[in-house]
């Protein structure tokens, strides 16, 4: 299943890039990186459906919580 999904993503990418009128390397690179990210995410989710979501601004959450609780604790 994982293989099928990754092949599907690769097929879509190949088809679409083939359809472009011109292919500057910057565009192709960004496109491929994003497609690869999507494919990897799909593959990981297929193996483990409870994949943890990273919290990019998690430190802010913790900071706010600490400040909030510190204020409330007084």
């Amino acid at each position, binding site marked *: 299943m994982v293989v099928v999904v990754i092949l599907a993503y690769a097929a879509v990418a190949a088809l679409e890039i083939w359809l472009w009128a011109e292919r500057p390397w910057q565009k192709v690179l*960004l496109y491929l990186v994003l497609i690869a990210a999507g494919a990897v995410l799909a593959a990981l*989710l297929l193996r483990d459906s409870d994949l943890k979501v990273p*919290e990019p601004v998690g430190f802010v959450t913790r900071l706010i919580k600490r400040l909030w609780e510190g204020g409330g604790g007084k």
Partner: protein
Amino acid sequence: MKELVPDHQGLVLVMLFVVGNTLVFALGGVAGPDIWLAFLLATVLAIPMILLMARVRSLMGGASLACGLEQLLGKWPSRALAFAYAGYAWRLACYVVSDVTNFIQAVALPTTPQVVTATLFALLMLWAAKEGVEVLARFAAIMSKVVFNVLFVTFLMLLSQVELGEFQPVMYNGVKPVWLGAFQLLEFPFLEVVVLFWVFDCFRSKKSPYRVFLPGFVAASLILLVMASTSLAVVGAERYAQFYFPVWAAVARINISTFLTRLEAIIGVTFAIGSFVKMAACLLAASRSLAYSFGFADYRFLVTPLALGVIPGSQWFISTLLDVELSVIKTYPTSATFFQAVLPVLIWIWVEWRARKLGRGKSSPTQAGGQ
């Protein structure tokens, strides 16, 4: 190639975006019987943020998003900002898709895997985002006639079952639930409007952003207020907070002369249409801002990878209906606050300062007016 959306279509797009995927959920349930107060409070609190957003867009004049941002913020800060919002918009798209797929699985197709619906929606929104904001706004304009008329008719039919007693006594539990409800509403859905900042490429005149964002938002929030309070009055405050889909449950009770029954499917349909507009707008915003942050003029080549990423993404962030509820309450708020309130205010201050410095502020009547 400028993409110019007529003001009235932009306004409808804003309305559908806000009403979009929120219609059936238990919005502001914590406020209990004071739900309408929570809605009003949230609307009042959101209006300054909306104005601020419109102000920033208005300072750009008739310039396109990319040019305007670069002028106002400088090259690198604006690109960093765009990158951050690309992530936020993409994540919001995932949330919207998972809302819809979870909803459909819960009410209609218990055995169909969510991936199937998610893929179909992703393909459609890919198409919509590739067509661009003009087409999306036209789509919203024509679909809004269906959606809002259906909502109006359902509202009329619900009226016979409304128990006004449900709203009394006012503020029995004090002010705190109202504030809590209002803040929940701000996070989801009201201030998600910030995504629309990145959807519109340019506006007709300097006044257009105000004309598009403010009335659109206020109208949408009033519609939500009416729908939420009506369904609360039909099903009762306690059940409203317990149900996953209280509006759905309320509409299911409609029974007019034993023939007009089971109208909840229509609500489901409008929900799907509204959600589609919202997810397509999010995808468009994500692609546009990501393309801008990497310095590409055209965003369309990024739509496909981002849309294909949404399919696993929707399962990643939220995989069950319980997560839908939890995410609204727990995980979503902080990052949402950051993108919806903190960053916009910072941008506004920065932009206002830059505009003063560039001498563009209020005194540039050249592009004001318009139609």
